[in-house]
């Protein structure tokens, strides 16, 4: 299961894929990333490593990807356009490929005003669609954005993100179409709590035939507490947590909050699995990576396909 292009194989052979997210530490200690990787090993097909998530400085995604790879996991390098211009991005793309990191997820990144350096200067030289296009150009055409030829093309499986819950809703599937046209082959969605809205978005995705051109992995986040549910509902841009879920989390005694969060999460997985065009799930257990194996087992997905 640790073959370098495992995720692509699992998806293209029609298996239901499981990926999970892993946040690198806010320090130089490699142990914490190894520990988190240890929880995930054997339960998922590939692991996303976030890139200074919420604009808070963390160990670089590339370094953490390599640590995970050495520990026998398949990493997905997240890359945001917030902190690097096209020179740095292309250089990192080559570096990732050279290190044998085969999956790359292109995104714009949260604005720095939400992070720990709100006074930072951001970059946004190119946007996330253009980053997807850049990776594809480097891989398929063997040239840099500037036009020069690349000696040794980067072999990468290109992913993107989409948020079915952001506005304007009517262009959310069109926006994915744009990313797919640019070269994305898998997409991981924002955390799904409002399954009904997600299903409506998937219908638009199917209408455009996008589920046949790229693999859609449904984003799943287990909630730890009613406080977390409320926080995500009110303070995280682009997150849609329906009131009934917040109430449901609050309705159980404190010692059962986590249990309830996992129950909701497993129900969500069941529901999204039944939606046509969903090729897998992407579990984002924020600072709760140890729960991932339980979720995967609970969802009946523990036996991961062994791809030669």
């Amino acid at each position: 299961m640790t073959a370098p292009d495992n995720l692509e194989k699992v998806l293209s052979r029609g298996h239901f894929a499981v990926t999970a997210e892993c946040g690198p530490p806010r320090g130089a200690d490699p142990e914490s990333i190894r520990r988190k990787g240890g929880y995930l090993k054997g339960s998922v097909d590939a692991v996303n490593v976030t890139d200074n998530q919420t604009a808070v400085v963390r160990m670089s995604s590339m370094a953490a990807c390599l640590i995970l790879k050495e520990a026998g996991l398949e990493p997905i390098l997240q890359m945001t356009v917030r902190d690097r211009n096209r020179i740095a991005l292309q250089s990192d793309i080559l570096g990732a490929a050279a290190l044998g990191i085969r999956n790359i997820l292109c995104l714009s990144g949260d604005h720095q005003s939400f992070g720990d350096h709100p006074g930072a200067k951001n970059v946004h030289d190119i946007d996330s669609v253009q980053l997807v296009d850049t990776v594809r150009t480097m891989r398929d055409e063997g040239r840099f954005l500037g036009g020069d030829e690349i000696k040794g093309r980067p072999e990468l499986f290109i992913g993107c993100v989409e948020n079915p819950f952001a506005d304007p809703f009517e262009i959310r599937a069109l926006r994915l179409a744009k990313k797919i046209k640019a070269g994305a082959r898998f997409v991981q969605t924002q955390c799904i709590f409002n399954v009904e809205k997600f299903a409506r978005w998937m219908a638009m995705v199917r209408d455009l035939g996008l589920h046949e051109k790229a693999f859609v992995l449904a984003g799943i986040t287990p909630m730890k507490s009613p406080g977390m549910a409320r926080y995500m509902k009110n303070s995280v841009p682009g997150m849609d947590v329906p009131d009934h879920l917040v109430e449901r989390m609050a309705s159980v005694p404190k010692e059962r909050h986590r249990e309830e969060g996992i129950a909701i999460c497993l129900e969500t997985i069941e529901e999204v699995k039944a939606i046509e065009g969903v090729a897998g799930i992407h579990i984002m257990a924020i600072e709760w990576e140890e729960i991932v194996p339980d979720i995967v087992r609970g969802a009946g997905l523990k036996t991961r396909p062994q791809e030669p």
Partner: protein
Amino acid sequence: MIVADRKPFDEIIGMVAPCERILLIGCNECATVCAVGGAKEGALLASQIRMRRHTEGRPIEVDEKTLERQCDPEYVNALAGTMDGYDAILSIACGCGIQLIAETYPGKRVLPGVNTRFMGITEEHGIWAERCQGCGNCVLDRTCGICPITRCAKSILNGPCGGSQDGKCELRNDTPCAWQLIIDRLGALGELDRYGEIEKPRDWSSSRDGGPRRRVREDMRI
């Protein structure tokens, strides 16, 4: 127009602390329209400075002038005969005006009385909003007259990002999402299919990334 804010009064008082005699220069253009650097504001600031220094027991002499345009040598040069005897020039024009004074009078200490903010419009009386970053290669033809370089917090050309909600930018809920505006307008024009076109990475060398910019019109030179 160029929009500026007056600097906090205590910062101004700190800057003029070593001075006994200063010249306060305003500008009749943008700085006047955005109510920060015209004759009226100059007079007010001058008397505030005098009063504060008076109560501190260190009186200061403040003379005032308001130029037609402080970004134009024609008007700035005309000050030549009147610049002597001042410990500093306090300018309440935009950063361009302040710099032209400094360039023209190298021996003078020039102090900024305002923080120059952005190029914008008057949304309504008392509210100004940014509209253009002078990127030098306008995309408004492709974005329905709404500038994503300036009005999207991430300058996304293929927006919106995943944080756009209820028409507002993820940054603040008092700021419209530029891409919501663009999509609405595309919809109203019946051109939503244009949204599918991928906008390629842009050439920022026409912007400030290309270094300080200069425009030369040979036909206008004398």
